[in-house]
C-alpha cells in the first residue's frame, strides 16, 4: 500500500513535463493568487503561476532530496554507530566525541563556507543535508548495539568464532534497525523543509524552480488569502511521510516472520 503511493508519487514527478497543465515558471501578472478553479485546479501563486504544475515539478526535487539525503544520513549514521557501538572502548570514545563535535558545530557557517566552493544544485543540497544529519542516527544505532552485543545470541556467536562483520551484519544490525526506521521516516519531511531553507542561502534549488518547500514558504505571507499555497504542499509532504512509513513497516514485517507471529499471539491474548 505504502509502496504503491510512493511509486505513484515518483511516477507523477517523472511525468511532470507531460501532465503539468501550465509552464511552472512563467509569471502571469493578471492571475495573482487565484483560488483553485478549472483552469488552475490548485490555484495560482504570488506571481500568478499554476500551483499544480509547480507541485508536479517540485515533486522531482522534493522527493529526491527527501529520499536521497535521508539515505545518505542513515547510511553514515548506521556505519558510524555500529563501529562505535560494537567495538566500544577507545574507538567508541573517539567516534562519539566526533559526533559531539559535529552536533555543536555552527552549521550555518559551515554551509556558508561550503557555498563559497560549490555551485548550487540539487546534488549539493542532498549531500549537504545528508552529510550534516547523520549524528542522531549514529547515537541511536550505537545505543542499540551497546545493549544487543551483550545478548545471549551475540555472545554465543562470538563463542563459536563467527567473524565480527558477520555478527554485526547477521545478528545485531537487523535488531538495531527499529529506531533507524523512525529516524528515516521523520527525516524525510525534515529534509524536504530544510531544502527550502538552504535554497534561500543560495545553496540549493534557485528560483524560479519550484519545490514543495519553497511553495510552502511563499504561502507564508498569504496564509489568509492563499490557503492553497500552504495546504497542498503540506498535504503532499504528509502523504509522502505516511506512505513511506507504511512502506517501511511493511518491509520490516515482511522480513521478520517472528514479529508477525508474536504480535498476532500478543494481540489475541490482549483481547
Amino acid at each position, binding site marked *: 500500500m505504502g509502496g504503491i503511493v510512493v511509486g505513484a508519487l515518483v511516477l507523477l514527478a517523472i511525468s511532470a513535463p507531460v501532465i503539468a497543465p501550465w509552464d511552472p515558471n512563467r509569471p502571469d501578472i493578471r492571475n495573482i493568487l487565484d483560488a483553485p478553479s478549472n483552469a488552475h485546479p490548485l490555484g495560482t501563486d504570488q506571481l500568478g503561476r499554476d500551483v499544480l504544475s509547480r507541485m508536479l515539478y517540485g515533486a522531482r526535487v522534493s522527493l529526491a532530496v527527501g529520499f536521497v539525503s535521508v539515505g545518505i544520513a542513515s547510511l553514515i549514521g548506521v556505519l558510524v554507530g555500529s563501529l562505535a557501538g560494537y567495538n566500544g572502548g577507545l574507538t567508541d*570514545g573517539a567516534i562519539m566525541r566526533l559526533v559531539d563535535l559535529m552536533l555543536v*558545530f555552527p552549521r550555518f557557517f559551515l554551509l556558508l563556507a561550503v557555498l563559497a566552493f560549490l555551485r548550487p544544485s540539487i546534488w549539493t543540497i542532498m549531500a549537504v543535508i545528508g552529510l550534516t544529519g547523520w549524528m542522531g542516527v549514529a547515537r541511536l544505532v550505537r545505543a542499540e548495539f551497546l545493549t544487543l552485543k*551483550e545478548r545471549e545470541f551475540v555472545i554465543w556467536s562470538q563463542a563459536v568464532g563467527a567473524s565480527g562483520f558477520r555478527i554485526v551484519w547477521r545478528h545485531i544490525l537487523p535488531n538495531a534497525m527499529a529506531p533507524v526506521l523512525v529516524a528515516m521516516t521523520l527525516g524525510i519531511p525534515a529534509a524536504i523543509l530544510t531544502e527550502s531553507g538552504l535554497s534561500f542561502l543560495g545553496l540549493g534549488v534557485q528560483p524560479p524552480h519550484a519545490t514543495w518547500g519553497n511553495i510552502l514558504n511563499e504561502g507564508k505571507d498569504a496564509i489568509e488569502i492563499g490557503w492553497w499555497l500552504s495546504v497542498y504542499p503540506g498535504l503532499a509532504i504528509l502523504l509522502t511521510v505516511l506512505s513511506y512509513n507504511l512502506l517501511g513497516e511493511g518491509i520490516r514485517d515482511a522480513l521478520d516472520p517472528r514479529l508477525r507471529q508474536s504480535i498476532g499471539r500478543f494481540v489475541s491474548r490482549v483481547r
Partner: protein
Amino acid sequence: MLAYALRRLVLAVPLLLGITLISFVVIHLAPGEPVDLQTGDLSVQSSAQAKQLLREVYGLDKPLTVQYWNWLGRLARLDFGRSFAPDGRPVLQKISERLPITLLLNIVEMLIIVALAVPIGVLSATRQYSTFDKVTTVFVFVGFATPDFWLALLLMILFGVQLGWLPISGLRSLNWEYLSFWRQQWDFLGHLALPILVATFGGLAGFSRYMRQSMLEVVRQDYIQSARAKGLAEPIVIGKHALRNALLPVVTILGLSLPGLIGGSVIVESIFAIPGMGQLMVQAVFERDYPVIMGNLVIVSTLTLVANLVADVTYSFVDPRIRVAARRGRR
C-alpha cells in the same frame, strides 16, 4: 561508573577548546562581516571610514590567532565579551535575559511531549494496526508534517482574532502591571498557551514513534514471552519489563534534545513575538555578532557534552547489561 563520568568530564575540557577553536575559525572565515550590517541598510550615507573604525573597535583587524587568544583569555575569566550590536551590551547579559523564557517554554513542552508520547507509543505498539494505532499514526504525522508557522497562524486567527479568547502574541498584556497577582499569572499563562500547543504538536511525532517502534521490538523478545509464560499480568509485563527496555532510544533522543532546550524555536518565537534565545541567535548570526554566537556556542557545547554523558550513564540504568564504561573492546 563514577570514575568513568569523571574521566569523561576531564576529557571534555580539551574537547571544548577544540570545538571553540574550530568554530571560531570557521565563523570568522565564513563569508560576511559584522561591520557591513551596522552602517545602515546599504543606504547612501554609510561610509567606508565608519566601517574601518568598527573593524578596529571589534579587533577584527588583528590576525585570527590573536583574536582567538584574546577571546579565550576573556573566557577564562568568564567574560564572554560585549556584543557587536550597537547597544554594545555584555553577551552574558543579553543571553541571560533571553534564557529563562526559552528554558521555561522548552521544559514545559518537553514534559508534555514525554507525558503524551510514552503512553501513545506504548498503546499503539501493544495494539499494532488497531484503529487507535492508525489514528494516532496519522495524527502524529500530521503534527510533524504541518509547518509550525501555518499551525501557529491558524490558531492565532481562531483563538485570537475570531473568538478573542487568547492573546495573539507577546508575553504579557500591556496593562500587566495593573493586574492583581493571580490575574498576572493567568495572563502570562494565556500568552504561553498557543506557543506551547504549537511546539508540542510538532514534537509529539518524534518521541511517540520512537517509543512505538522500540516497544514493538521489545515485546517480541524472549524474556517478555517468558515473563508472560510465568503468568504475570499484562500491565506488569508491559509496564515493568517491556517499557524499561524500550526506553533506550528515548533516552538517546532526550540526550540529543537537551542542548536544544536553550535553543528555542525561531519560527515559534518570531511568530508569537517571544523574546527568546532563538530570535537572539538568528539575529546574531545574520548580523555576524561573533561574541554572541561564540558565547552561545560555549554554552551549547558544554550542555551537549554533558547531555550525551548523562545519556551514556543512563543507558546502564535502563539496561544493566550495558557497560559503556568498559575499556575492553571486543575484537
